[in-house]
């Protein structure tokens, strides 16, 4: 079974005035078509940079040194030209962000933002066609009054509403891969849970693969088929969600799990900073990948 996303030995360092800082130390991560995979770890462990590499954005940052293989749909993103990488973004893969309201352009109506996204694969799409398709997408994320939302500016909508808009927008071009970087962490816990349910339904229906980034094991349990636990730029445990929860093999995973009851969706898990056994070799729950 070939994977849609197949990351091998991904390494990343930043050149700074003080020398090179290594952030990722050889990550292997794979997502099959239609699979929902979570990448869990504490702040600064290298989750967002991984997403930025998959999108091909960090490769264009001059201070970043990236190596390894990022296979996507049979091609290696690392070998592509900046133009080829840009052609994937927003069409083959898209991303949703932590804070929905500040991730939308404050000077555009929702309709205009949809149009920008939907014209990525088809520049000649008419305004009427954009509006109609956008309304259909909003319908899919259970937004009732689609006309009014399309005419609104992000600041006129609630955070939860903007979150649904962003999900609808991310799926508007039917991408193969959706990257969700701590979606809705900035929102209310109940709103967050509601929109995550919605997103889960939607990606299942569309058959979209998802890389779900989070620091919260509790949220991940609801959402992901499979989990990668990342600690300081290394994957320390990987396996199907039930297996990881039933039998966490790595000391760091156990520490994360112990922190779960104390997280309320917001805030960071209360995990000890360092412990010797956090550097133990990776644990794989067999049979899956």
């Amino acid at each position, binding site marked *: 079974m070939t994977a849609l996303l197949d990351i091998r030995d991904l390494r990343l360092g930043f050149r700074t005035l003080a020398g090179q800082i290594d952030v990722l130390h050889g990550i292997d991560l794979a997502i099959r078509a239609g699979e929902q995979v979570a990448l869990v770890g504490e702040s600064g462990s290298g989750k967002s940079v991984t997403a930025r590499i998959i*999108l091909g*954005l960090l490769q264009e940052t001059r201070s970043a040194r990236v190596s390894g293989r990022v296979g996507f749909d049979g091609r290696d993103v690392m070998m592509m030209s900046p133009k080829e990488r*840009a*052609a*994937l*973004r*927003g*069409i083959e893969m*898209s*991303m949703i*962000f*932590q*804070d929905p309201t*500040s*991730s*939308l*352009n*404050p*000077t*555009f*109506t929702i309709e205009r933002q949809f149009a*920008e*996204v939907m014209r*990525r694969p088809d520049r000649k799409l008419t305004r009427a066609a954009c509006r109609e398709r956008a309304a259909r997408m909003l319908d899919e994320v259970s937004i009732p*009054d689609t006309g*009014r*939302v399309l005419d*609104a*500016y992000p*600041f*006129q*909508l*609630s955070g939860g*509403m903007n979150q649904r808009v962003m999900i609808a927008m991310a799926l508007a071009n039917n991408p193969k891969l959706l*990257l969700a970087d701590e979606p809705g962490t900035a929102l209310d816990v109940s709103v967050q849970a509601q929109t995550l349910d919605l997103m889960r339904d939607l990606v299942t229906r569309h058959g979209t693969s998802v890389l779900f980034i989070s620091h919260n094991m509790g949220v991940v349990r609801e959402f992901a088929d499979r989990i990668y636990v990342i600690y300081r730029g290394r994957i320390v445990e990987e396996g199907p969600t039930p297996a990881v929860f039933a039998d966490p093999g790595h000391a760091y995973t156990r520490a994360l799990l112990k922190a779960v009851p104390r997280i309320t969706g917001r805030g960071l898990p209360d995990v000890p900073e360092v412990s010797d056994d956090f550097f133990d070799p990776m644990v794989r729950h067999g049979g899956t990948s």
Partner: protein
Amino acid sequence: MSPVIRILARRFGISLIVLVGVSMLIFAIARIIPGDPARIALGPNATAEQVAAIRAEMHLDEGILAQYGYFVRDVLRGDLGTSLYTNRPVTFDIRQFLPATLELVILAGILMVGIGLPLGILAARYRGRWPDHLIRVLTLLTVSAPSFVWAVILMLIFAFYLPLFPVAGRLSDSYDITRVTGFLTVDTILAGNWGAFVDALHHLILPSVALALSGIGQAARLTRANMVETYDKPYIEMAQAYGFFPSRIARSYAFKPSLIPSLTIIGLDFAAMLGNAFLVEAVFAWPGLSRYGVAVILRKDLNAIMGTVLVIALTFIVVNIVVDLLIAFLNPRIRHSTRGAAS
């Protein structure tokens, strides 16, 4: 659209207060400066009776409040009195000299926006790289000298050592253009005289560039600073994640939102050009309102001083209102300042 009307109404109210305040202040100051305006106007050889006659005609012997009362009454009738310097109605003089100044200031404003903003956008888009460094050095140079210094430098280089542009005036003597609007670039076109139009534009370039240079630098630096800040916003990362072209991200995602805070200051800079025009007009012997203003102040020509000040204050007010409207147009938060029911 009601928030925009509310903003306009408030702006008009404030403007009226400012206008009345400015007129009172200048009215009082002009009368406090030592020297008898009638005596200055008539010269040392006039008789005491002649001086007294003028003083009576201008109500100079009455209390200052009464004088202000006469002034307001006349202004409401559209009468600014007679200039003791030119012996013509002040309204006539203003109509004569204001277009020359406006022509200069408007072209300078167009240069400021038309060159300053694109430079700022370019610098922000290539922040930290050579186009940015180059633009920052150049704009630092332009803002570091006031416009009259640039006027002298430009005149020396481009009119004196390299005689590419005329040294002074608005039009060569060989042309005779009937005055319609007072804007020579417009009147020459109305007259169908292409040669005169080019000549008028030729005269206009050096003084307006001198006037615009520091504004161009300021607009570019301000635009760059606000845009660089905007480039750190999450919606820029979102735009990148969607693969939009960098030029499109620069225009619609980084520039547009950051123009809103820049605009107020650019508007003030534009209005300030009216003041800077005084010295540029002096350098280029430009027959504009600013030169007129200096001349009448030196002669304590009370009516002409009031007229000039009122016109300049009015121009400031108009510029401010235009800027407010532009901001309301650009910023949906102002246009829709009530929270949408869809939330």
